[in-house]
């Protein structure tokens, strides 16, 4: 945003819920932040439309008791957040206020906190040297934040090349202290601290390129990793009606996925679910570092009863933090639950501004907004030839469970992986309720991905995935025929086909998120179980009557499930495996 000599001021002239019209005395910018001076507090608001001399602003707080003629001060900045060491393991609201620093049980209107700790000393190690040529995003030094290397970078806002004039020596500094000075081509010197600010609605683009993702992001969830894997730097979304297990699945991903940093944006969802994150994450051991999961997690909480406008900001705040850590060469996983709430916040605003509505009263540009947001994820080659990534998975809460509604449709165009949660599966408690046939991962079509998976997991992996999906489809067709023609109206082989698909369902697809062992399956174990299940699917069995089929396969499923519940390759595991082999021998074709 261009610097303005004078900050504009204004007066409130109209109030409709959290949309306020302000008559302004000077220049203002779209998305500029202003403060409405209500008696002893000031309410933060953002310009969302300008019709000279009137600014339409959305207020991030309740506007109760606001009167016309109230003074408004414009700041000259867009909504910015502070980036620097100390973000991890914090619980922020959508505007990056530190929720733990706020006093009292209730959130006070107009209370804003400093997001980072200004007093804490960080052990700084310089990475650059005096005289180095640097650009925005260059690594100047490093501190250790919760065991993670946290790079101190040249502010992303700067353009052009600079020379490092001075750099702090190894030692302890606070975020307020100067750690470097750089000079531009004209000899102007800029002093730098460990922090910088960035406007959340603008993507950080100080990288070299964004190649196609190719590396698997392990999640430990079988139905994702095995059937429809998501790649590091990939995008995915999980639409599903309420009660279909969206949140449980997202929590599982945040706990298990193989990422350096996890950013969770709880956007317009239930407060008790956020409390679950607050309570459980500090207790959960991080299987990757042996420390606590919370140490590499940041939660941006804007629950459904917190102000609507801040809900919209919260996903951008979360994404900006994710981009910041990506710039350090880290693997970031960002989860947003739910992007529908964000879209609804846009709808409420559009409605108050009396804009002509698009489908279901959502704003016309919804698809574009969602697409440009998903585009901020990706696998990134940084300017220093290191790589970093943001894998983004959003949930969508389709109204009435109807996947044809605007938010789902718009997201489908933007995200590469689609994990459709099915009501039928949820009703019969087949969790995770991801529908194996409707869901897809476009990454499986990428040549690079195919090569990578076949190389790292098994040379037949891709063809195994295809064949297991085939068994599922065949079983589904068989079950439809059985339903139409009756148990004895179809050949026995139909029953066998159906039950083979049930084996895949019960053993590969279904997973008990609340069981210590079954909750997360490493890829090696997934490979083993997939091969086991496929070998059963590829075996011919003989039955005289269809009545015997179900009972027989239930025994097989039971042994396989017990294997899932046992420590991999333990005696218990092998015991059940032996049992399984015996059962298979009983009816195996010669």
């Amino acid at each position, binding site marked *: 945003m261009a610097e303005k000599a004078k900050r504009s001021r204004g007066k409130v*002239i*109209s*109030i*409709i*819920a959290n949309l306020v*019209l302000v008559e302004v005395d000077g220049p203002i910018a779209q998305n500029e932040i202003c403060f409405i001076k209500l008696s002893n507090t000031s309410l933060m608001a953002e310009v969302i439309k300008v019709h000279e001399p009137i600014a339409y602003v959305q207020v991030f707080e*309740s*506007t*109760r*008791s*606001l*009167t*016309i003629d109230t003074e408004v001060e414009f700041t000259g900045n867009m909504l910015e957040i502070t980036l620097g060491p100390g973000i991890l393991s914090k*619980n922020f609201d959508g505007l990056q206020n530190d*929720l733990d620093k706020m006093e*009292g*049980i*209730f*959130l006070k209107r107009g209370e804003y906190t400093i997001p980072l700790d200004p007093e804490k000393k960080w052990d700084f190690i310089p990475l650059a040297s005096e005289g180095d040529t640097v650009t925005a995003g260059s690594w100047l030094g490093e501190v250790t934040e919760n065991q993670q290397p946290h790079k101190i970078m040249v502010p992303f806002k700067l353009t052009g090349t600079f020379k490092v004039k001075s750099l702090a020596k190894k030692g302890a500094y606070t975020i307020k202290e100067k750690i470097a000075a750089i000079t531009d081509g004209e000899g102007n010197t800029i002093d730098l601290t460990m922090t910088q600010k960035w406007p959340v609605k603008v993507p950080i683009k100080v990288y070299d390129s964004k190649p196609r993702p190719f590396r698997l992001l392990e999640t430990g969830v079988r139905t994702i990793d095995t059937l429809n894997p998501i790649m590091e730097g990939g995008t995915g979304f999980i639409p599903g009606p*309420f*009660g279909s297990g969206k949140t449980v699945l997202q929590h599982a991903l945040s706990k298990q996925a193989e990422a350096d940093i996890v950013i969770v944006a709880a956007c317009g969802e*239930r*407060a*008790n679910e956020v*409390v679950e994150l607050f*309570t*459980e994450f500090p207790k959960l051991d991080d299987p990757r570092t042996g420390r606590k999961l919370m140490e590499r997690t940041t939660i941006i909480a804007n*629950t*459904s*009863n*917190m102000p609507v406008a801040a809900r919209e900001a919260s996903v951008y705040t979360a994404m900006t933090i994710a981009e910041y850590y990506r710039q350090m060469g880290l693997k970031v996983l960002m989860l947003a639950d*739910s992007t529908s*709430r964000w879209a*609804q916040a846009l709808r*409420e605003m559009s*409605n108050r501004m*009396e804009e002509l509505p698009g489908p*279901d*009263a959502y704003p016309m540009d919804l698809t574009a907004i969602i697409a440009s947001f998903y585009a901020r994820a990706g696998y990134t080659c940084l300017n220093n030839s290191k790589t970093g990534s943001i894998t983004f998975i959003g949930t969508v*809460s389709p*109204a*009435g*469970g*109807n996947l044809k509604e605007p938010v789902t449709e718009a997201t489908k165009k933007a995200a590469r992986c689609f994990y459709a949660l099915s009501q039928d599966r949820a*009703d*019969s*408690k087949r969790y995770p309720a991801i529908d194996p046939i409707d869901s897809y991962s476009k990454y499986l079509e990428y040549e690079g991905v195919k090569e990578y998976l076949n190389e790292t997991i098994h040379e037949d992996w891709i063809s195994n995935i295809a064949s297991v999906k085939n068994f599922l489809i065949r079983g589904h067709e068989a079950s439809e025929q059985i*339903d139409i023609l*009756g*148990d*004895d109206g179809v050949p026995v082989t139909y029953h066998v086909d159906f039950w083979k698909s049930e084996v895949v369902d019960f053993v590969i697809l279904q997973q008990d998120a609340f069981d210590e062992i079954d909750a997360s399956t490493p890829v090696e174990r997934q490979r083993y179980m997939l091969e086991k299940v496929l070998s059963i699917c590829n075996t011919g069995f003989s039955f005289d009557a*269809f*009545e015997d089929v*179900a*009972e027989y396969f*239930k*025994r097989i499923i*039971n042994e396989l499930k*017990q294997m899932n*519940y046992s420590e991999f390759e333990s005696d218990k595991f092998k015991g059940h495996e032996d049992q399984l082999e015996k059962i298979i021998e009983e009816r195996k074709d010669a």
Partner: protein
Amino acid sequence: METRAFQKIHTRITNITKATCSLKATGVGYEELAIVHGKLAQVVKIKGDTITLQIFGGTEGIPTNGEVIFSGKPPSLKVSDALAGRFFDSFGNPIDGGPEVEGEEREIGGPTVNPVRRKQPSELIATGIAGIDLNNTLVSGQKIPFFADPDQPYNQVMAMVALRAKADKIILGGMGLANDDYLFFKNVFDNAGALDHIVSFVNSTEDPPVERLLVPDMALTAAEYFAVDKNQKVLVLLTDMTLFADALAIVSNRMDQIPSKDSMPGSLYSDLAKIYEKAVQFPEGGSITIVAVTTLSGGDITHAVPDNTGYITEGQLFLRKDTDIGKVIVDPFRSLSRLKQLVIGKKTREDHPSVMNAAIRLFADASNAKIKQENGFDLTDYDERTLGFAKEYSRELLAIDVNIEIDKMLDTGWQLFNTYFTKAEVAIKEDLVSKYWPEEEGLEERRKKEPSEAKA
């Protein structure tokens, strides 16, 4: 609200719709209360000097020269211990003939609890109804509605839950409550000797619909007083939230807002969330649990009101008549308590989650068998057994007239498994099976005997 001497009286109303009116005035605060021609009203829009007011009692008879007096403050409720045992209207005025309640005046619809100051709910609320305790366990600090068709006995079940829940205070928010239902609640609570810890805010079907908009906030302001100031466990009953949403739609329609799905305002999600999210567990011990009713039309849960509600609340309870046993049951498929994971197997016996899931899965198999039967197909032996199981499971556990302890529910579950199924069919973790599978002769033992009997 009494008129004060220095208050300015406006007498020129420029616009009147069925629910709102507008006039020119200055110095008015957003959401401020006013009295328009003797009726209570609230500021919903300020555009320059034009103020739009929502008239709670409806605009019938309001003349353009009617008197408008602004109160200078948003709606509020006087809170103190004296609230207990009293009945109020939507504005907080007593309707039981008793005196006005004295106490601290608090704005209703107050601020949000900081999520980091909440505690994770972990206290089980036992109701004795197995369809709830076993399959959809309630937890204090939870918010959960009954999704019910108007002909189902949801108010009765809710009253039963309320009385068995051992709450310190029960707060009833009745919206569009039929007078008969109001008297029903009053009688049930009275007979149980519970009136002294009940506070009621009632908008009956005879009262103007827009008044309802105040009821949930009134009820929850009272609830927050007892939960925060007195560290009490408060149970809030809200019936019927669909009628509340209808009132929202009326007002937004009169304000010319573009409706979204099902003619509901675009802000429906946020409006409902503001109410339901008042459910909370505080670390100091106080809690607010909300049990609500959302009536459906013809069981349609894709309608905007149940749909948005489902995304906000922590589960939902469905009632359904089971024709096999002729009783109302808590539907195990469509009902869900999201917070049950926090207590089952932790506050209850370790086998709780497994028994619950296995029983529901077998019940699902039974409904598949029933479809086969209805379509005239032959049933397998397994199908027959699931049908037998389903009937007993419905009668012994799902019916709403069941009132037993949770351990007894689990034992009953195991017994039914033993009677109808083999261990492999039930497919529960081995260590639990070896510990809880009943000793009595079950299906497996009978089967083992059969071949030998045949030989003999």
